[in-house]
Structures are given as C-alpha cells and as structure tokens.
C-alpha cells in the first residue's frame, strides 16, 4: 500500500496493494499456527499462481516442514485493513534441521560473541 501522494514506481503498473498484475503471480499473506500455538499468526507473504500453490509455498518458505502446522493463505487483495498499525510477524523455529540453530555449533568462549 503506498501513501496517497505516491507516484507509481517507474516501469511498474500501479495497482492497489496486493492486487495481481496481469503478468505476475498474485501476492498472498501467510498465517501459521504452530504445533503448540493457539491461533494463526501472520508470518509474511509470498507469490503463487493460486491459493493451493500458496499453501505449499508457505509450507516450504515459512515452516521448513514443521509437523502439525496449520497454514492459512489469503490473497493480499482480499484483506481489508482497518488500522495503520500491524502486529509483527513472528518467528517459527524449524525443529527438524538441528544445524540451522546456532546452538548446534560449538564456538569456543574465547572467540567472543557469535
């Protein structure tokens, strides 16, 4: 969403935030509920050809395959936002691949913070 006075970026067809351009995959906002979560949280967005693909992409991009996860995708154009304040997306740890975690590596204390 651009501010009212904004001019479209050179070369970009001006569209309202999230609306699909003719030659591009539409934008989807992604909401994830983790195994121990009680509700879905917004984690970010991505592009996909349709909602089904968006769910699969979301699984790959935002969960690194956590099991028991629930994913909602909404085409950005369909979201009606009321207030300018958005709650931030939150981090979903990937438990399967343990080397993704900094604690997997044994960095000696002498080396300093890393």
């Amino acid at each position, binding site marked *: 969403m651009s501010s009212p006075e904004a001019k479209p*970026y050179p070369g970009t067809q001006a569209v309202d935030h999230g609306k699909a351009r003719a030659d591009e995959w539409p934008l989807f906002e992604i909401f994830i509920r983790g195994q121990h979560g009680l509700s879905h949280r917004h984690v970010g967005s991505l592009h996909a050809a349709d909602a089904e693909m968006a769910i699969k992409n979301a699984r790959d991009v935002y969960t690194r395959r956590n099991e028991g996860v629930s994913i909602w995708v909404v085409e950005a154009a369909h979201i009606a936002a009321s207030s300018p304040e958005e709650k931030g*997306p939150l981090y979903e740890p990937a438990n399967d691949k343990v*080397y993704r975690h900094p604690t997997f590596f044994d960095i000696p204390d002498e080396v300093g913070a890393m």
Partner: protein
Amino acid sequence: MYAQMIKSTGQGVKSLEEMDPQERAFQERINAGGKIEPKDWMPEGYRKNLIRQIGQHAHSEIVGQLPEGNWITRAPTLERKAILLAKVQDEAGHGLYLYCAAETLGVSRDQLTRDLLSGKMKYSSIFNYPTLTWADMGAVGWLVDGAAIMNQVPLQRTSYGPYARAMVRICKEESFHQRQGYDIMMKMAKGTDAQRKMAQDALNRFWGPALMMFGPSDENSVHSAQSMAWKIKMNSNDELRQKFVDECVPQAEYLGLTVPDPDLKWNEERGHYDFTQPDWDEFFDVLKGNGPCNTERLAARNKAWDDGAWVRDGLMAHAAKKRAAKLAAE
C-alpha cells in the same frame, strides 16, 4: 551496506521547524521510535530511498546465493552439504521476505528483478568475488555473514515497519550462518597443512572485500545524514567497520591465522584496533562492474530468469484455467 547509489535530495536534513506539519508529524514519530507502516503518509524521498535500499538488500541475498551455491555439489561430507544447502536456501528466503517488504511500498517484485537484471539496481559488492576453495565457505560465513549481521542487528529498529519485521526474522536465522562458517574455519585451521594454508588464503582474499562491505567513510555524506534522520540507516559506515575489526581480530587469533594487515595494532588510547583501510579504488571499480565476477553473477541471474519464464507462465496459465473451470461449474 545496501545503499549504494541511493541519493537523497542532496539538500541536507531539514530541521523540524523547516518542515510542514505533515512531515513534522512523520519525523516526530520516527524520532520517538515509532514505526511507519505502509498506509501511512511518507515523503516521496523516504519511500524512494526505502525501495532502493530494501530492494538492493533483497538482491544481495539472491545474488549472494551464488558464491556459496558454487560449492554445494563439491561439499566434502553429507553433513557439510546439508548445512551449506540449508544456509543458501535461507538466503533465498531472506530475499523473499525483503522483496515482500519492498512490495508494500508500491513496487512489484518482478520490476525490482528486472532492474537488477538490467544493472539499474545494485547488490552488495562482496558477491562479485569468487569462491575458490572449500575454505572460502568458512571465510564467507565468518566474515561476510559476520559483517551482514553487524549491519542487520541495528536495522531491526529501523523506522519502516515491514522492513524492521523482515530484519527480525532474518537476524534469527543469520546467527547459524556465521557459526557454520566459523566452524569450517576452525576445522581447517586445526587440520592438515594444506587445509591450514587454504584457510589462510581464504582469509587473505576476503578480508579487504569484507571491510569494503560497510561502504566508504560517510562522515560528510549528505545522503547518509538524511537516511540516519529517517532511521533507515542506524550507524555510520566507519562505526560498523571498526566494530567488525574489533570483533574479528580475536577470532582470527583463536584460529591461529594472520589478518592480512601488517599495520593492524591494538590502540590502547582509542580502545580499538588501528587498521589499514581497504583499497577503495578496487571498491569503486567493482561497483562500476569491474569486479572478478560481476559479469558471471548477472549472467547467472539473467539465465535463471529467462530459462524460467516458460515455467512461471505455464503455472499461471494453469491457475487461470482452474479458476475458469471453477466459475463455469458454479
């Protein structure tokens, strides 16, 4: 770090009194540590600056996949292969978060991509250097990701909401990147003679370019001053570079490797290391397109884009057919 070729109006930072009420309210919100969100009013300069910076940050992640991607198929063990692949995959993910943040400002990811591919937008200069040995995987993780972290941690407090939130997610993942690089350096530095030599050689080649990542001194830069006032930039280039050197030197000492700077010396008075500035002529050459790998990097990205056009088009066409069939059925 990603602000190369970003220009402000060049007129210097306005004081609050000089601003009209709308801009004053905007600036006061930033001064108070508040966030600017996509639907808020913002000066055109702020918006343009952000598109450029976030876009170039995103491009850096994507192009940054290439130097390390270069060694995935030659990784020496199954575990190293998996770790490196996971790291490079993360870079793609970071690019994705950042493109999405940029898109909230009214530009499309495809347009940003086209601007990268045509050379109109830049990416971090460091990725124009080649990765020649497995030790380079260590040096890149340790130094390049290390420098990126130094820049990114403060950016979690940047004024633009979507950018700040993308940075939070990225920072959580980035620490693993630096540690895996340092882990490789440790293994090599304490390994065979050949491995030790490889590690030292990697450090020799990446030290200067890593220092260059922070950009030349911007004490007198009008553009930097505006970016700082808008909290799009959180620290000066020299500040970050000094912090980076101070952290890396003990890390190099632990490895038993020599930082390739004969004038590197602890300065008791300053409480920092004195060090030699990197070769800024080389830096500007690389920016101009004369780095060792500029041509290859852009060629690789152009090829991926061009070769992939039929895939993107095919999947879009299929989605359209599905939608039409659904409507017809109703």
